[in-house]
């Protein structure tokens, strides 16, 4: 006989609300059900009522962490219909911003994971490093988030030469920290390994069958990265490699993210070195900073690799000053299809950890009701209690850990 644990919808630690129903037998999860839409804002409907140049601001606010990649993906879709290309310098600047975003997003989720398994000292240290990246973004764009850098046909702000040493300093610091601290901890810490190794395994076949995206699928050995599959901006011009790991467990998913942070640092360094001089916006595109263009009729899809995976924007234009349809598919939406193979078979105490390793941009667990289906008794468990359960589990694994 299985019991149902409804998890969610609200939870302050993860970013957004989601309701997961866990069907459990004892401590084992046997089935999962989802309910989305607690923060449904009708952005696609709103987009059909905005002009081509108003939508980027809306697109950027789809996500609070990876906003810039949404803006870029939307703008590149419009650029494909308008058949213009941003100048090379603009492409390099976009790449730098996308990679800075990837670094702070990966550091955030690594920190959140350490928090979930009870390593709060690591959580604070990693967040302190991440803060330097956020300050850097503020220095470049004036905002910690929502950089508003890309515009149709180019970028809005230049990266002046005097900022380059500052960017390089932070990037080197992040790389050094990742190489000397985060990766050794992941590779050697016994408690960490005990919690992460062989938990919530997704094998190659399942990952491909469910068409998962991003680091989640790369950790299962599937070689796919939109930066490589369909290169955009300055990625074909810099030297970098796709990180793939074959293990497919919680550990591999986080390890891939840590290695990707280093790759992002390399990409930024190369971009700063190779960045050509010249215009930052296509001359034809300058009037479109203030006035919406007439976009030719057509349907086009644009893809980018966000920190969490593949972002898809689809646009249908009927030739006017606004789209007839604007569809967005975020990476977490694709990864939620794989939540069943991810959670089925693991312990209840592993759920917060396994769930964090797909880097969800939706979320859960403010309050959990445990409904015992046999007696109909409802017990309300708070997030703190679930977290305590997770920490107690770590403690049982290694008695010396407080």
């Amino acid at each position: 006989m299985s019991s149902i644990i409804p998890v969610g919808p609200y939870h302050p630690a993860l970013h957004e609300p989601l309701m997961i129903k866990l069907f459990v037998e004892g401590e084992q999860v046997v089935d999962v059900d989802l309910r989305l839409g607690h923060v449904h804002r009708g952005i696609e409907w709103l987009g059909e009522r905005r002009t081509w140049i108003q939508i980027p601001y809306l697109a950027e606010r789809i996500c609070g962490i990876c906003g810039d990649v949404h803006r870029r993906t939307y703008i590149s879709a419009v650029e494909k219909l308008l058949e213009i290309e941003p100048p090379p310098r603009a492409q390099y600047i976009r790449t730098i911003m996308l990679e800075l975003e990837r670094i702070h997003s990966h550091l955030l989720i690594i920190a959140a994971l350490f928090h979930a398994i009870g390593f709060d000292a690591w959580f604070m240290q990693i967040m302190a490093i991440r803060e330097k990246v956020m300050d850097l973004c503020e220095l470049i764009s004036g905002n910690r988030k929502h950089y508003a850098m890309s515009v149709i046909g180019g970028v809005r702000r230049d990266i002046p030469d005097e900022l380059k040493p500052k960017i390089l300093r932070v990037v080197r610091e992040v790389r050094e920290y990742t190489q000397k601290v985060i990766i050794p901890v992941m590779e050697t810490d016994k408690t960490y390994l005990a919690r992460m190794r062989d938990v919530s395994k997704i094998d190659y076949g399942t990952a491909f069958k469910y068409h998962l995206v991003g680091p989640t699928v790369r950790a299962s050995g599937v070689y796919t990265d939109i930066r490589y599959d369909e290169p955009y901006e300055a990625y074909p011009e810099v030297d970098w490699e796709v990180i793939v790991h074959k293990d497919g467990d919680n550990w591999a998913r986080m390890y891939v993210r840590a290695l990707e942070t280093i790759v992002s640092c390399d990409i930024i360094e190369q971009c700063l070195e190779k960045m050509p001089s010249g215009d930052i916006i296509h001359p034809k595109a300058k009037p479109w900073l203030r006035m919406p263009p007439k976009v030719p009729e057509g349907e086009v899809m644009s893809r980018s690799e966000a920190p969490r995976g593949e972002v898809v924007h689809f646009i249908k234009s009927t030739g006017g000053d606004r789209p007839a349809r604007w569809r967005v598919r975020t990476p977490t939406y694709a990864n939620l299809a794989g939540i069943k193979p991810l959670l089925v078979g693991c312990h209840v105490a592993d759920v917060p950890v396994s769930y964090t390793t797909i880097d969800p941009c939706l979320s859960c667990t403010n309050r959990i009701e445990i409904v015992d289906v046999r007696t109909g008794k409802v017990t309300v468990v708070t997030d703190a209690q679930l977290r305590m359960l997770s920490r107690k589990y770590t403690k049982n694994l290694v008695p010396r850990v407080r």
Partner: protein
Amino acid sequence: MSSLARYLPPFVTIEKDKPQLMAVCPREKIREAVEHMVKQNFRFVTMTGYDDGQNLVVIYHFAFHPGQNVPEKGTIHLKVVVPKSDPKIPTVSDILPPAFLYEREIWEFLGVVFEGHPRLEHLFLTEDYPKHPLRKS
């Protein structure tokens, strides 16, 4: 004609190949077409639905990936057009597990009924939401 057309099943008609290959598939053949793409190891990206005024349109997006060992890069789109008076399409959620959520979403926003879908229920909106919000008029 684009060389990508050789990856498509024979019974689809190519609508346009710029900027991306868009092919129209009759709705009774869509399961066959999707199986054809899955056999060639295409990545299923997502599904889009929209209302073009007269008809409802559902697009199945597929993408090339390095695991296929083919020189092409980019995306291929299969389109199914159904009249508003009879908005029914056979489900592909048993062939492609991720379509389970996308089909629910398209049913919710446009009212396209996916025949054979195991759970065509509300996903994003409340259970008693009165209409399909992305339908025009």
